[in-house]
């Protein structure tokens, strides 16, 4: 006899989602479905028809958790559409911004999973080290990108300005001093995650990994022809869930994929582990990778070099791709700028959207009590992942699905 366990909303994640698990007599999940119930943002429609520079300013407001990756993906897409080659120093400053932002985001995730792994006697220490790491990494974003939350200085064509030599030295010193703290924090979290004794193989799946780069992101990776999108009604195989789900299902080569730290580690670091523990460990390790890359950038940055390219805002309707490795996976923005300098088409294919169809099935084969563990290992963030709008409130159907058609 199968029973249905519904967790709604799933907790300690960003945004609202629902986990529906069909379980057998032993409580083992036989079918897992994970769906977004976060209302639509509609930013892609909002930026269409407006001046191209508007897109990064609006799109960064898609969410307060990942404003930096969204801004970067947006300007990268516009740079690509307008055929802009940005100055070398701007590339470094953009990557530095992302590294710092991703350290911050991973630290926040450790706060979210603290009650799963951290015993009471270490709780204060773990939370304190999360706070300290966040403070320093956000300070970097503040200085390099103008604002920690909605960065003002990441621009089409590069960065608004370089940082001063004083700022470079200061950031270098602060990040150097942060190294032992991050190392200790990562050791602590890794130890606690391994000590937890989660069932072997929990959350392991065989889906292809979806990652473009070890750190920053690479637009050449994304092949538009290999991408398809299906409506939730046809994906979930459950009419009620299909209607309730707020996100479309993106597929690459016709199948669902896994994005995020483990995907990056598997593709670029030869990492072979799978499942919940592997995801947590690779996420923790990435904090070290980002930090050392940030220090390297600060070491080589020329603070008197130009950071903004001259460019013509009149486009040629080229489909520009911006690909940024956000904390939770590959964030792709697509943009087309017309010859009047206005955005003709815009689409955001965001990290958690890629993971949504994969997360549900990843709960299968284990007791439903572990379901939330599996979900949290993906660090889902639903805010930007919603692209479907219910037009007919009576029957909750997605009547107007051209909203999501490319």
């Amino acid at each position, binding site marked *: 006899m199968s029973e249905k366990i519904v967790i709604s909303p799933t907790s300690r994640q960003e945004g609202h989602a629902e986990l529906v698990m069909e379980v057998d007599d032993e409580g083992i999940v036989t079918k897992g479905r994970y769906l977004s119930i976060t209302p639509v943002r509609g930013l892609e429609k909002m930026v269409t028809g407006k001046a191209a520079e508007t897109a990064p300013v609006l799109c960064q407001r898609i969410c307060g958790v990942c404003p930096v990756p969204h801004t970067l993906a947006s300007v990268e897409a516009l740079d690509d559409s307008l055929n802009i080659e940005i100055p070398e120093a701007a590339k470094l400053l953009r990557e530095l911004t992302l590294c710092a932002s991703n350290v911050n985001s991973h630290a926040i995730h450790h706060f979210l999973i603290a009650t799963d792994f951290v015993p009471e006697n270490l709780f204060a220490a773990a939370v304190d080290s999360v706070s300290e790491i966040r403070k320093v990494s956000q300070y970097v974003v503040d200085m390099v990108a103008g*604002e920690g939350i909605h960065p003002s200085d990441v621009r089409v064509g590069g960065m608004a300005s370089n940082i001063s030599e004083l700022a470079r030295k200061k950031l270098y010193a602060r990040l150097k001093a942060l190294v032992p703290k991050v190392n200790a924090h990562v050791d602590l979290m890794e130890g606690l995650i391994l000590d937890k004794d989660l069932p072997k193989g929990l959350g392991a799946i065989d889906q292809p990994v979806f990652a473009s780069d070890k750190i920053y992101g690479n637009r050449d990776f994304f092949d538009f022809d290999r991408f398809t999108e299906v409506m939730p009604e046809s994906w979930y195989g459950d009419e009620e869930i299909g209607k309730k789900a707020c996100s479309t299902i993106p597929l690459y080569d016709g199948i669902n994929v896994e994005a995020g730290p483990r995907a990056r580690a598997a593709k670029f670091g030869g990492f072979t582990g799978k499942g919940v523990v592997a995801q947590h460990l690779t996420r923790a390790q990435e904090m070290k990778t980002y930090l050392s890359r940030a220090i390297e950038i600060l070491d080589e940055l020329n603070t008197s070099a130009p950071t903004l390219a001259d460019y013509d805002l009149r486009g040629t309707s080229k489909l520009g791709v911006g690909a940024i490795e956000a904390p939770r996976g590959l964030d792709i923005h697509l943009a087309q700028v017309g010859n009047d300098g206005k955005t003709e088409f815009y689409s955001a294919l965001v990290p958690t959207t890629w993971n949504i169809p994969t997360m549900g099935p990843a709960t299968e084969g284990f007791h439903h009590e572990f379901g939330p563990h599996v979900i949290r290992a993906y660090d889902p963030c639903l805010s930007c992942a919603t692209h479907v709008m219910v037009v007919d409130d009576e029957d909750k159907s997605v009547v107007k699905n051209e909203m999501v058609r490319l």
Partner: protein
Amino acid sequence: MVLGTYKEAISARATDKAIQKVSQDGGIVTALLSYALDEKIIEGAVVAGPGDKAFKPEPLVALTSDEIISAAGTKYTFSPNVWALKNAVRQYGLEKVGTVAIPCQLQGIRKTQSYPFATRFLADKISLIVGIFCMENFPYASLETFISEKMKSSLDLTEKMDIGMGKFITTTQDDELSIPLKETHGYEQAGCNICKDYTAELSDVSTGSVGSPNGWSTVLTRTDTGASLFSQAVEAGIIETKSMDDVKPGLGLLEKLSNSKKSSADKEITKRVDMGLPVPF
């Protein structure tokens, strides 16, 4: 209180001849900011630096004494220093910022410290504000207009501007020109007419020529920060002082002018309110 809250009023000037040469009066702003920088009380200062056009200042994030000295001298048109404070703490990476501000700018800065909307992690990094006495400020086009049409000169010919003894005075290479101050009325920024602050009451330490003899400035120390910086600078020999009681025209004139700014602003405020116009106070 007509001069706002202050601890001590004193007549002073910078001892450094290099500062005296370029300063408007006693060189107090330049001396205090340079001293604060040298003593690491601040890491840099936002000042009204030289711009592309004559007498049109541009905010400058100064990281050295030389840069601070390059900004010496009064400019009678606006330098949007408040705007550059964010640059100073972001791209420049300053965590202890000093700045020089006229009363209206001070009101803005102090407001950001009470309500830091859009000034996140900025307000707490402003460590020193040197205020300057200000009766009114002219838009750049106003200066151009009355210097050209009333004084029959031009900004390019002008080497120094001053206001004193009821006159607006410009010095050219070989001449000193002046018009009565009342001839400039109507050319000031409209907001100046409802501003009730003459002596930069919200600053840490404020200064201006009125009350002291030529080449000297009147200084009002207001906060602990301002008072301790000033007394350290005096102790270090950067600044020399005279008691206000010993100088002419003395504090009385400062009080008189401050009173007159407040009462004429009150009149204008009443007038605007009666007309149904919004006033910020």
